[in-house]
């Protein structure tokens, strides 16, 4: 355990889902613009929630396990990256299930 503990968990999430892009051909990373445009508003919304929660003392971070780099409103960099990594993992999982099962997801071309 070190100041990279939180980041290691996030790295584990990225590594744990990366194979989906190749084996299930999720094409999520390949659709970079769409991915960025999705993650950006999510980061903003959840950074606001996080800032409020930190200010109110809902949760705190053990300084031994986070990088110590803080961004706006006392939000640790580790947290901002959480709001980037988890959405990517969620989209990869979603597109992987869709790839395997061919179920309708709502963004298909309408005829």
């Amino acid at each position, binding site marked *: *355990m070190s100041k990279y*503990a*939180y980041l290691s*968990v996030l790295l*584990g*999430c990225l590594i*744990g889902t990366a194979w989906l892009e*190749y*084996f*299930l*051909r*999720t*094409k*999520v990373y*390949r*659709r*970079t*613009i*769409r*991915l960025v*445009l*999705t*993650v950006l*508003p*999510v980061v903003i*919304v*959840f950074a606001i*929630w996080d800032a*409020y*929660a930190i200010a*109110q*003392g*809902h*949760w*705190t*971070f*053990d300084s031994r*396990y986070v990088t110590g780099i803080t961004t706006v409103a006392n939000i640790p960099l580790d947290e901002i990256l959480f*709001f980037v990594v*988890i*959405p990517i*993992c*969620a*989209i990869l*999982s*979603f*597109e*992987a*299930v*869709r*790839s*395997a*099962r*061919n*179920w*309708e*997801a*709502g*963004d*298909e071309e309408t005829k």
Partner: protein
Amino acid sequence: MTYTQLAIIGVLVVIALDLFVFKTKLLKRKVFWVSYSIVIFFQLVTNGILTGFGIVEYDGDAIIGSSTPKDSAPTFIGDGRLVFAPIEDLLFGFCLVVLTLIIWIWLGRKGVQREPMSGPPRKSVNRFLGIK
């Protein structure tokens, strides 16, 4: 507001966004519930690490359960917690995942990189999953 209250409001907001605002209707789709059940399993694992080791600690005044203890792990199951994490985190995670997928699908519907669509799985995966 407490974390409990915010988390419940968050869930209601994303449900409204999905069904009535963006009309992505993910919550009515099989593809969402199957992928969400996979996500929730891994959320319990990773969040269990973050909360069990006390990387993130919670204030008992903000959650149903009690504060994360100073020098020991929180309750594994019970005291308002599931795999060390406050059950509020499940609602928080739901909000995070659903909001993400709403925007992802909404953008696709608007034609923002709808293509290339995902799939098909590589043959090796099909064999593994038993799909012909």
